[in-house]
């Protein structure tokens, strides 16, 4: 995945392999600029025109990268859906909530009558615990939590198989964040849906994800089942990131030395090399291949293994 920019090509995502099984939550974690949002958007092919994507994205029996725009449009919203960090920028401020539902339903079933569309809207709104009188309101009349619930409800209309949630709670306070994630977890079971949870918050991933992929500088540094990965991180970056989390048990602060790298231009060697505490000579020149490490067959891109 490369963006052409006036300053040169930005390799936002490189050599990424990611599998999401049915009915699971996969957490995609990383810091700002690591490419996690770009990866999420490329699944839905929601990328700007200066982006070029190579590789394949298989969803059920389709390769998403070879579908026509029309086929893709049909899959989007029907089988694949996405929620974003700030629902206020995704809801049209001039449209009542009911019209968002009618528009979304008619995008896929053009001949549905308003009455039937509203019945379907009420049903999904009840699932996300939003009272149906909110249908007559405008987005600005809803609270932040309600707006995000409405966004989720819009996604649920066609019972998608995969929901991509890009920092869905970053704009919310801790209690609301926990509420929304509990909600996502319960509807995920109810709708038999998978979730790709994109976040910078390791705590959320630890609490909710079945599997985790840690991204750094456009690549996946480490990926595996949540429990063993948190218990015994193998990649030095994962290790550093986990140590730098400040939680209620923290007694000593830690931060990863250096600053995140620029993605501009061709990179050689491991992108984490300048910040790594376990770097070796080979790291500077050769990019580490992904290897399967340990009993849990974890994917790790590091020369230590």
């Amino acid at each position, binding site marked *: 995945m490369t963006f052409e920019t006036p300053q040169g090509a930005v390799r936002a995502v490189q050599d990424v392999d990611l599998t999401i099984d049915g009915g699971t939550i996969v957490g995609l974690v990383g810091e700002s600029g690591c490419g996690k949002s770009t990866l999420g958007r490329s699944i839905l092919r929601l990328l700007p025109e200066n982006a070029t994507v190579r590789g394949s994205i298989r969803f059920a029996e389709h390769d998403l990268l070879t579908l026509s725009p029309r086929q893709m449009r049909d899959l989007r919203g029907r089988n694949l859906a996405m929620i974003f960090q700030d629902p206020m920028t995704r809801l049209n401020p001039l449209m009542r909530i009911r019209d968002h539902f009618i528009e979304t339903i008619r995008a896929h079933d053009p001949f549905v009558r308003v009455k039937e569309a509203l019945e379907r809207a009420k049903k999904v709104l009840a699932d996300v615990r939003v009272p149906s009188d909110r249908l007559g309101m405008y987005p600005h009349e809803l609270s932040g939590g*309600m707006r995000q619930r409405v966004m989720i409800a819009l996604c649920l209309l066609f019972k998608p198989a995969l929901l991509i949630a890009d920092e869905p709670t970053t704009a919310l306070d801790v209690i609301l964040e926990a509420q929304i994630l*509990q909600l996502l977890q319960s509807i995920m079971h109810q709708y038999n849906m998978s979730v790709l949870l994109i976040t910078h918050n390791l705590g959320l991933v630890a609490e909710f994800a079945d599997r985790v992929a840690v991204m750094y500088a456009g690549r996946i540094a480490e990926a595996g089942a949540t429990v063993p990965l948190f218990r015994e991180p193998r990649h030095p970056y994962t290790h550093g990131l986990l140590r730098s989390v*400040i939680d209620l048990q923290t007694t000593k602060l830690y931060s990863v030395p250096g600053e995140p790298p620029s993605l501009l231009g061709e990179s050689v060697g491991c992108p984490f090399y300048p910040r790594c505490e376990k770097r070796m000579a080979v790291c500077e020149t050769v990019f580490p291949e992904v290897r399967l490490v340990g009993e849990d067959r974890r994917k790790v891109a590091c020369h230590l293994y």
Partner: protein
Amino acid sequence: MTAPLLEVRDLKVYFPVFHGFVQRLIGGGDAKVHAVDGVTFSIPEGQVFGLVGESGCGKTTIAKTLVGLVRPTSGQIVFRGKDVTHPDRKGLFHLREQIQLIYQDPHAALSPAMTVGAAVADVLRTHGLPSESGVRVLPKSEDELRAAVYQVFEDVGLRPPSFFYDKYPDELSGGQKQRVVAGRVLALRPKLIVADEPVAMLDMSIRARMLEFLLELKAKHNLTYLFITHDLATAKFMCDRIAIMYLGRIVEMGPARTTYADPKHPYTRALLQAIPSPDPERRSTKVLPKGEVPNAVWPPAGCRFHPRCPAVLPTCGWEGRDVIALLEERWLDLELAAREAEAGPVDAWEANGLIARRDVKEGDPAAVQTLIRGILNGGGGPMADAIRDVSVEERTVVVEFRPPDPLAPKEVEGRVVECLLY
């Protein structure tokens, strides 16, 4: 005990809600946001005092009030023994040499058109160079000014200073910008630094570095911090004392160590419980407060947390709109809503203070009365015990509550807690 560096007594800050012309004519124009509604705390010299709460709880308004960016509605602010609640122009100028603010976003705090050297120099040119005697002297030459800025840059770890002096904010990393902002603040040798979410914008892997830097500066310059954050974990690490705010009031305040070990207020407990733990082997089912923070224009009666509180009592402040909220919540279950259709819909109900009422236009008011009484007794919990009566007046069903018990901050085991449980 020496006098505290800063004392805030019963501070209130209200903002008027903008009303259109017609609305002003028909009245109701006195609505205001109760951003800070009776807050009292004090900070001894050399301590880190944490003000913790969710967005909209009033913590940033307090910060702005302290540096004179917002005028308090009432209350008193005493800084180093002097009343600075309503400073005049000159008083404010000198107050700001002693109380300085660090914002959340260093990028927004620096002018993109000014080199970072010029940004710091500007402050020193306005306020003069601090000296041993405490009297500020205006710099005599540009060279002297530049040397003073270099000294500041050295101080905050921007080395070599000559390298950074002519940089624009765009050319620096987030951490470096935060250091420039800290340098500009320190250049005046303030006594108190108000840090408003200083690390919220930074990536996790470098956040700790900024916190350590703040603690280093504190030790080196004998500073006192008011540390404002929504992140309880960071506050635990940084603060000597903390105050938890909810909707304009402090609900719990005390030494950080004991407050975290044994939180008293149900809101503090809820906040602590909601923090996601980065340990998948300690996953637990959380019992979260219902709903969201209510509108600060009409804060709930009694305890402001009562509509969401898991430990709520009948005397916490129930009122008419809580009935409407209960019905709304209950009828999210579409089957239940259909079965209890006679008592609804929700919009047929209106609330006024301690009363919730519904005019029954068709059908039998007595039947609605029985139905609503059953619903409240069945699903109302402690709210049901707060009801004085469910009556029928002509064709109107009226639910009336008893007034709440008075609520005031109480001393509980060395802490101040505002909750009827104690």
